[in-house]
C-alpha cells in the first residue's frame, strides 16, 4: 500500500481504477470468457473487488487530505477554441462517498447474482453487463466533465436495457427493456441539450468550470438549461411523467433490479444535479420545477406502492418515492450549501433498497413468486430472511435509529426550517414530505404484515387438526367427495356418469439451494450499513448539522408514523393474506397495479409518430418511384426516337416537315 498511497508516484490514480477495473472486467468477460460460469464469476468478482479496493483507497486519501482533486481520462479533446474539453475526473468528498457506496452495492449484487442465476445460460453476459453498469455509474459519480457525464449516463441506460431484457425469451421482458430504454432516451434528449447549453455558454465542458462561469450571472438561458437537465433527470430517475418504465423494469432478474434501484441509474440524477446545485440554488424557477416533479412523484409513488399486489413492484414504486425525496432534498437547500442532504439519503437508500431487493429475490425463489398470495407468511416460513427484511423495512420507513431515519429526518428538518422562514419551494416540499413519510410508513407496515402473516402457519395447524380429528376420519369426508354423485349448484344430481376423480399428485418438494455463505455475508453487510449508516453524518464526508435535532418535529414525525402503522394493522385484520390494501376497492387496486394506466398514455403518444412515419415512408416511396420514372421516361423517349429513326423516307420527310414548321413557328414568335 505504500506505493499506492503515494499517488504522485503511482501511474494510475485510484479514481481512474474505480471506473477502469469494472469496465475491464466487462471487456475481459465479453472477449475471453463468453459462456463459462466460474471464470465469468471470478472476473466479475475481481472487477468489483478491485473497484471497491480503489474506492476504499480513495476514501483513505480523502480522509487523510492527500487525495488529488482531479485525474485524467482519455486526455483533453482538441476542440479549442470553441470548447475547452479537459475530460477529467473530479474527486471531492461526495464523489468518494458515492464511489464507495456504488462499489459496495455492486460487489454484493455480483455475489448474489451468482447464486440467483445459478441455472441461467447467460450468466456470463449478465455478470459482464453488471460490471459495465458499475463502471458507467462510477464514471457519472466521478465525472467532472459534461461529456463524461453523458457517456456514463447513456451507457447506464444501455446496460439497464440489457439487464431488464435479460430473459429475452419472454415477450414481457423484451417489451419492458424496450420501454425502459426509449422512455429514458426520450428524456436524454433535453438532458443532452441542457448540458450542451451550459457547456457552450461557459466555453468548457468541465463541470466545475461551468458552475463557476454561470454562478455569477443568473439568466433565463441558465434557467432553461437547468430545466432541460431536470427533465432528463426525471427520465432516468423515473419521476413524473416518465415514472412508468421503472415498475415494468421488474421483469429483469432481481439482482439487476437491486443494482438499478439502489446505487445506479435512478440515483444518477441526484448525483448530476448535486454537481450543478450551486446553479440550481440561484434559479427559483428551476427549483420550482424540481420541487413539483419530485413532490408529485414522491407522494403518488408512495400511494401506488401501498396498492400494489406484487411486492417487487411495491419496492419499485417505493424507489420512485424515495428518489423523489432525494430530489426534494436538493430543491430545499439554501444558497451556498452543498448537496449533503440528498446524498446522505442516497447512500442510506442504496443500502436498504439493495438489501430489500436481494432478500425479496431470495424469498421469491423460495416461495415461487412475488405476488402477495405467494409472499404471504414468507418470513415465518423462512426465518433466515426475517431479520434482514425487518431491518430493510424499518430503515425504509425511517424508524430510529436506522440510517433511513437519520437521512430522512434531516431533509424534513431542513424543509420545515426554510418553510417557516418563508421559502415557497420549501413549503411545497414540506407538504410533500409529510405525505411521503406517512405513505412510506404505511406501505412498509403493509409489506411486513403480509410477509409476517400467520395464516400459512395457521392453515397448516388447522390441517393437522382436521387430519387428527376422529370424527372427520369416521365420516370419511374425502371418500364421500370421491364416491358420491356430482351435483349442480342447486344440489340436484347431474345425470352424467361419474367421472372418477384422480387426486392430484403431491407436488415434488422443490429443493432450493440456499444462497452461499458469500451472498449471505454480503446481505448482512448491507443490513449492518442500513442500521449504522446514520453515523455517516458524524464523519467529515458530510457536513450536516446533526447535533441540533428539532425534537418536537421528530416526535411529531414518529407519532404520525405510529398512527399510520396502527391504522394499517387494523386494516389488515381479517384479510386473507394480512394485506391491508385488500380493503381498498378492487378497481382502485387494479388501476394502481397498472400504474394509473400511464403505459396506455405512452402507447397513445407513440401512435401519431408511427402514423407520421407511415405517411413519410409512403411519400418517400412516391418520390423514389418518381425519380425512377424519369429514367424510364428518358428511356422511353429514346425508344420513340429510335423507332422514328427507322430509315424509311416517309418518316424522314415527316420529321423534316415538322422541323421546318417548328423552326418557322419559333422564328415568327421571336420576330
Amino acid at each position, binding site marked *: 500500500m505504500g506505493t499506492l498511497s503515494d499517488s504522485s508516484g503511482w501511474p494510475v490514480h485510484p479514481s481512474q481504477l474505480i471506473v477502469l477495473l469494472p469496465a475491464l472486467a466487462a471487456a475481459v468477460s465479453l472477449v475471453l470468457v463468453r459462456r463459462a460460469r466460474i471464470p465469468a464469476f471470478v472476473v466479475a468478482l475481481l472487477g468489483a473487488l478491485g473497484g471497491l479496493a480503489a474506492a476504499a483507497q480513495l476514501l483513505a486519501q480523502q480522509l487523510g487530505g492527500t487525495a488529488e482533486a482531479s485525474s485524467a481520462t*482519455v*486526455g*483533453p*479533446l*482538441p*476542440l*479549442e*477554441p*470553441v*470548447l475547452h474539453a479537459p475530460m477529467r475526473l473530479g474527486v471531492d468528498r461526495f464523489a468518494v462517498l458515492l464511489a464507495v457506496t456504488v462499489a459496495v452495492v455492486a460487489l454484493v449484487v455480483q455475489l448474489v447474482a451468482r447464486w440467483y442465476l445459478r441455472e441461467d*445460460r447467460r450468466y456470463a453476459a449478465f455478470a459482464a453487463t453488471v460490471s459495465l453498469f458499475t463502471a458507467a455509474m462510477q464514471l457519472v459519480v466521478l465525472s467532472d466533465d459534461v*461529456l463524461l457525464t*453523458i*457517456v*456514463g449516463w*447513456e*451507457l447506464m441506460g*444501455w446496460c439497464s*436495457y440489457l439487464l431488464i*431484457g435479460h430473459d*429475452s*425469451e419472454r*415477450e414481457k421482458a*423484451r417489451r419492458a427493456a*424496450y420501454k425502459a*430504454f*426509449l422512455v429514458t*432516451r*426520450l428524456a*436524454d*434528449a*433535453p438532458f*443532452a*441539450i441542457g448540458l*450542451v*447549453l451550459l*457547456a*457552450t*455558454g461557459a*466555453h468548457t465542458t468541465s463541470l466545475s468550470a461551468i458552475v463557476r462561469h454561470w454562478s455569477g450571472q443568473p439568466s433565463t438561458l441558465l434557467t432553461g438549461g437547468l430545466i432541460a437537465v431536470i427533465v432528463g433527470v426525471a427520465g432516468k430517475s423515473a419521476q413524473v411523467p416518465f415514472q412508468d418504465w421503472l415498475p415494468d423494469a421488474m421483469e429483469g432478474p432481481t439482482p439487476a433490479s437491486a443494482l438499478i434501484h439502489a446505487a445506479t441509474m435512478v440515483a444518477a440524477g441526484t448525483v448530476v444535479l448535486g454537481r450543478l446545485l450551486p446553479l440550481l440554488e440561484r434559479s427559483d424557477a428551476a427549483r420550482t420545477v424540481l420541487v413539483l416533479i419530485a413532490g408529485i412523484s414522491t407522494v403518488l409513488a408512495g400511494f401506488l406502492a401501498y396498492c400494489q399486489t406484487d411486492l417487487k413492484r411495491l419496492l419499485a414504486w417505493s424507489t420512485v418515492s424515495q428518489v423523489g425525496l432525494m430530489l426534494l432534498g436538493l430543491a430545499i437547500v439554501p444558497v451556498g450549501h452543498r448537496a449533503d442532504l440528498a446524498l446522505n439519503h442516497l447512500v442510506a437508500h442504496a443500502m436498504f433498497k439493495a438489501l430489500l431487493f436481494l432478500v425479496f429475490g431470495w424469498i421469491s425463489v423460495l416461495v415461487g413468486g412475488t405476488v402477495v398470495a405467494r409472499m404471504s407468511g414468507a418470513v415465518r416460513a423462512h426465518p433466515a430472511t426475517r431479520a434482514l427484511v425487518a431491518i430493510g423495512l424499518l430503515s425504509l420507513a425511517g424508524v430510529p435509529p436506522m440510517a433511513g431515519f437519520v437521512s430522512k429526518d434531516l431533509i424534513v428538518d431542513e424543509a420545515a426550517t426554510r418553510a417557516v422562514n418563508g421559502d415557497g419551494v420549501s413549503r411545497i416540499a414540506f407538504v410533500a414530505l409529510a405525505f411521503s413519510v406517512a405513505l412510506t410508513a404505511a406501505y412498509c407496515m403493509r409489506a411486513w404484515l403480509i410477509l409476517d402473516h400467520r395464516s400459512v402457519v395457521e392453515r397448516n395447524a388447522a390441517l393437522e387438526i382436521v387430519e387428527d380429528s376422529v370424527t372427520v376420519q369416521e365420516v370419511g369426508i374425502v371418500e364421500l367427495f370421491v364416491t358420491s354423485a356430482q351435483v349442480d349448484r342447486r344440489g340436484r344430481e347431474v345425470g352424467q356418469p361419474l367421472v372418477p376423480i384422480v387426486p392430484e399428485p403431491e407436488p415434488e418438494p422443490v429443493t432450493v439451494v440456499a444462497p452461499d455463505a458469500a451472498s449471505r455475508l454480503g446481505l448482512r453487510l448491507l443490513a449492518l450499513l442500513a442500521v449504522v449508516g446514520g453515523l455517516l453524518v458524524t464523519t467529515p464526508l458530510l457536513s450536516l448539522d446533526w447535533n441540533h435535532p428539532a425534537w418536537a418535529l421528530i416526535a411529531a414525525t414518529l407519532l404520525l408514523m405510529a398512527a399510520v402503522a396502527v391504522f394499517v394493522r387494523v386494516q389488515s385484520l381479517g384479510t386473507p393474506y394480512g394485506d391491508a390494501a385488500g380493503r381498498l376497492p378492487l378497481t382502485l387496486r387494479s388501476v394502481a397495479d397498472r400504474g394509473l394506466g400511464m403505459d396506455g398514455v405512452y402507447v397513445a403518444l407513440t401512435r401519431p*409518430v*408511427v402514423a*407520421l*412515419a*407511415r405517411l*413519410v*415512408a409512403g411519400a*418517400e416511396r412516391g*418520390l*423514389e418511384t*418518381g*425519380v*425512377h420514372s424519369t*429514367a424510364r421516361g*428518358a428511356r422511353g423517349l429514346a425508344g420513340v426516337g429510335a423507332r422514328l429513326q427507322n430509315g424509311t423516307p416517309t418518316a424522314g420527310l415527316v420529321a423534316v416537315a415538322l422541323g421546318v414548321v417548328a423552326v418557322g413557328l419559333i422564328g415568327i414568335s421571336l420576330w
Partner: protein
Amino acid sequence: MVAALLVAPLAPLLGGTALIAADRSRLRIATAAAYGVALTLAVVALAAALLAVWKRPGIDHSWVPAIGMRLHLAIDGISAPLVVLTAAIGVLVVLHAGWREPSATYLGALLMVTGGALATFLVQDAIAFFLAFELVLVPMWLLIARFGDTTRPGERDRAATMFVLYTVLGSTLMLVGILVLVVSAGTSDLTHLQTAHLSRSTQTVVAALLMIGIGIKIPIWPLHSWLPAAHTAAPTGGSVLLAAVLLKMGTYAVVRLVVFPLPRGLHAIAPVVAVFAVAGILIGGLVCLVERSLKRLIAWSSVAHMGFVVLALMTGTTLGVQAALYGNIAHGVISALLFVVVGGLKKRWGDDDLQTARRALRQVSPRLGLALVVGFAGSLALPGLAGFWGEVLTLFSAWSPGDRPLTLFRVLAVAAATGSVLAAAYALRVLRTVWAGTDSLPDVVTDGGSVVAQDAHAVEWIVIAVLVAAVVALGVWPTPLMHQTAYGLAHVSRVLVGGAP
C-alpha cells in the same frame, strides 16, 4: 516514400483492371488465384497507405498544363483518417469476398473502387479530384448491376441504372461548380484554393452548385432517392464500399471544395442546407420506424447519419468540422459492420424482411448477434462506440454556430437531438425482433446441431471482429483521431474559429 503515394491508389486500380480484363479474356484465371492476387494487392495498398500517412510525403508535378492540372498528391490530417479507413475497408471487403466463391471481375471491381477512392483522398488538385471521384462510379455500377441481388433482377437493374444516372447528374453539377471555382480563382490546387479571394456572389453561386451536386452523392435529403435502392440491390461488398467509402467522398468534397475555399458562399447557403440535413435526420429516422427490409433500413439510417455530418459542416466552425470528420469515419466503420452482418443474414435467411418470424439471433448465431448489437448500438450513437462523439459534438457545434443564424441552428440542434431518439427507437426495434426473437417459434438449444453452424466463421468472423474492434476503439479512445483532424484544421485559416456569443 513518394512511391507509397503512388502505389496506394495505383496498385488496386491497375490490379483491378487487370483482373477484370483477365476474366473477360480467354485466360479465365482460377478463383483461388484471383482471390490471392486481389488480397495481396489490397494489403499492399493498405501498407502503402499506412506508410504514406506515417511519413507524409508529397508529389507535385505539372500534368496537364493546358488546364492547369497538376499531379499533386499529399496527405494532411483531414485526409489521413479517410485514407486509412478506405484502404482498410478495401482489405476487408476483398477478404470478405472469400466467404462465397468470388469471380475475378467482382474482386477487380472491389479493388477499383478502393483504388479510385484512395486517389480521391490523395489528390490535391480540384480537377484531378473530380476525375478520381468519377472513376469510382463505373466499378460500383458493375458491382450492383452484375453481382447484386439475384432474387429480384428487375429491381436490381433499375437500382443500378438509377445509381449511375442520378450520381452522374450530381457529377455534372459538381463539374460545373469546380470549373467555375477554378476559373474564377485562377488555380485548381486545393491548398491554393483555400486562400483564394472570390466575390461573395461568385462564392454563393459556386457553393450552391457544388452543394446540390455533392448533395446527391452524400446524399442530403431530398436528393437521396438512389441510395436505399442501390444499397438493397448491391452485394455485401458493394454495400460496404458504398456506405463506408463513397458517401465519405461526398462529405470530404464538401470540406475541400466548399467549406475551405468558399466561406462566404457557405455562409449564405448554410441555413438552407442545414435545414435539409436535419429534415434528413428526422425523415430517415421516421422511415426506419416502419421500414420492413433490413438492408433498406440501414440505408435509410445512413441518410440520417449523414444528416448529422452535414449539419455539423454547415456551422463552418472548427468544432463543427471536427464533429463532421469524426462522424464521417464513425459512420464508415459502423455502416460497414452493419452491412457485413446484414448481408450475411440475408444470405442465410433468403430475404431480409423484418416481418418474418425468426428464431432469436442471440441463440442461433451468437457472433452475428453480438455484431448486430454493436452495430445498432453504434448506430444510435451509444457512448463507448464510434458514433457517439460525432453526434454529440454536432449538437455542441450546432448550439454555438459561429456567425450563422443562432436561433435557427439551436432549433436544428434540438431537432437533431429528437432524431437521435428516433434512432434509438428504430435500432431497438430491429434488435427486439431480430436479436431477441419472437415467441412464435420454439427455442433452440445452442450447443450441437446444424443451427450453430450457421454462425459467422472464418473470414466472415474475422471481418466482423475487426470492424467491431474498430467501432469500440474509436468510441473508447477518441483523442488520437481528433488530434489528427485538429492538426489538419490548424492549417486552414478560413474555417471559423469562434463559437456562440
